[in-house]
């Protein structure tokens, strides 16, 4: 949670934004820009009927699956590339290729090759995220402390113990950075995946509302998701970061 002083400032700036929105909406007075009160009533209605919560849950499940897949593969490859010079030379051009491959291309290809199925959707999102994780974690793995590495060798600390007590703690700033940027990137790509080839989830709903020109619902769904991401940040990532950094002076 941000400290109280920051909280007040955030609240005030948020209220100003809402005020401007309300003003703009009352001047425009059209379906293209509904005011905050209209969006709020749509949001409450959607939550009451359970519809928003259902699509939110579906999207969150896809985000979670792609996130876990991308992080575990990305971290493993990143550590390996940071430690093994030969592997790094070999995989570097692959990495450049995948980093610059447009998300849309991956999604289309996954759907074409595997069909319009759940696994194709999750895989497409993960493939988009993995190169970013690799690049960040590789930097961390390159900077691993040689002195501690020698200490581990002398005291025969191996495998899991080394990973848990020596390597991962050193990588934690890099891991947190890729978790943060990862969540933001992944949920945006998940919406595109849903828009193109799924029949539920927020992305699918947005495409329906787009066809019906229902801006109030588009805004209501976006706000619901932003709130969820903010809650993950406040109650998940910030406390985790504080725990991980307890040892620092």
């Amino acid at each position, binding site marked *: 949670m941000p400290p109280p002083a920051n909280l007040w400032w955030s609240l005030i700036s948020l209220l100003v934004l809402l005020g401007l929105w309300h003003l703009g909406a009352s001047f425009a007075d059209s379906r293209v820009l509904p005011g905050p009160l209209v969006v709020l009533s749509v949001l409450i209605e959607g939550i009451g009927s359970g519809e928003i919560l259902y699509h939110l849950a579906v999207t969150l499940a896809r985000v979670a699956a792609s996130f876990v897949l991308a992080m575990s593969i990305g971290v493993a490859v990143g550590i390996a590339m940071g430690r093994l010079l030969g592997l790094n030379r070999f995989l570097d051009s692959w990495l450049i290729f995948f980093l610059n491959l447009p998300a849309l291309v991956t999604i289309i290809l996954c759907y074409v090759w595997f069909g319009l199925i759940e696994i194709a959707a999750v895989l497409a999102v993960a493939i988009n995220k993995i190169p970013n994780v690799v690049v960040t974690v590789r930097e961390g793995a390159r900077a691993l402390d040689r002195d501690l590495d020698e200490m581990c*060798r*002398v*005291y*025969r*600390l191996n495998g899991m113990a080394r990973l848990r007590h020596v390597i991962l703690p050193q990588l934690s700033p890099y891991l947190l950075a890729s978790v943060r940027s990862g969540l933001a990137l992944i949920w945006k790509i998940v919406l595109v995946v849903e828009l193109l080839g799924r029949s539920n989830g927020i992305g699918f709903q947005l495409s329906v509302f787009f066809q019906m020109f229902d801006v109030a619902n588009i805004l209501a769904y976006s706000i619901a998701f932003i709130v969820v991401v903010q809650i993950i940040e406040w109650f998940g990532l910030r406390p985790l970061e504080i725990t991980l950094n307890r*040892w620092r002076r």
Partner: protein
Amino acid sequence: MSSLQVNLRGKTFPGVAQAPPHHALASIKLTITHGQFACITGPSGCGKTTLLNVLAGLDHDYDGEIHLPLISEHQQPVIGYVFQAPRLLPWRTVEQNLTLIKDRSASTADVGELLSLTGLTDFCHAYPERLSTGMQRRLALARAFVVEPDLLLLDEPFASLDEPTAARLRLLLLSIWRRHSTTVIFVTHDLREAIQLGQRIIRLTGAPGKVDLDMPIPLNPAERLDTQVIEAWRTRILQPG
């Protein structure tokens, strides 16, 4: 148990960028019998740490042979190494720094006892970066003891400590050495410290490092605490010829 045999023909660090290759160690032949306490002295840059790293198995890129004291036919000795810098895990508490090393060895050492011997009991839940340098050094020493090493390597472990603390830790080192019949190789540039601790002094000159003096120090525990005796030995060692 067999003795530690060093038969080095040389050790060279390859040149990096503009720096030429560095010939760190010349030919060094040493036999250190099991349970001996040997002190290695010499000016900085004469290859003392390089020699320890070779013995610890951290550096395999040398010319020659090293035979570590074998416990049994196929069992390598347990090594404890007190590095020049403490090299602790800053994200683990004082106690965890000991237990997670101990849990991976066959040691039966008592972590609580080692903490109290090194005066760290009250800080067992603290993180190393919040400790003073002296306390970090004591923890590094406790970590080397916690594996109950067959071969204990120490690289200027008491440098930058105040004299009373250093004196107390020297006694602790001696008492643990007597109890465990460990082979100890103690690197220091302080000749008084070497005379006080070692059964044998090996002086290196360099670079490249080679043995320039190898002398037994046949003193009993009482004499080792006597500053006059130590001064007399020091004069004798420093005298040319």
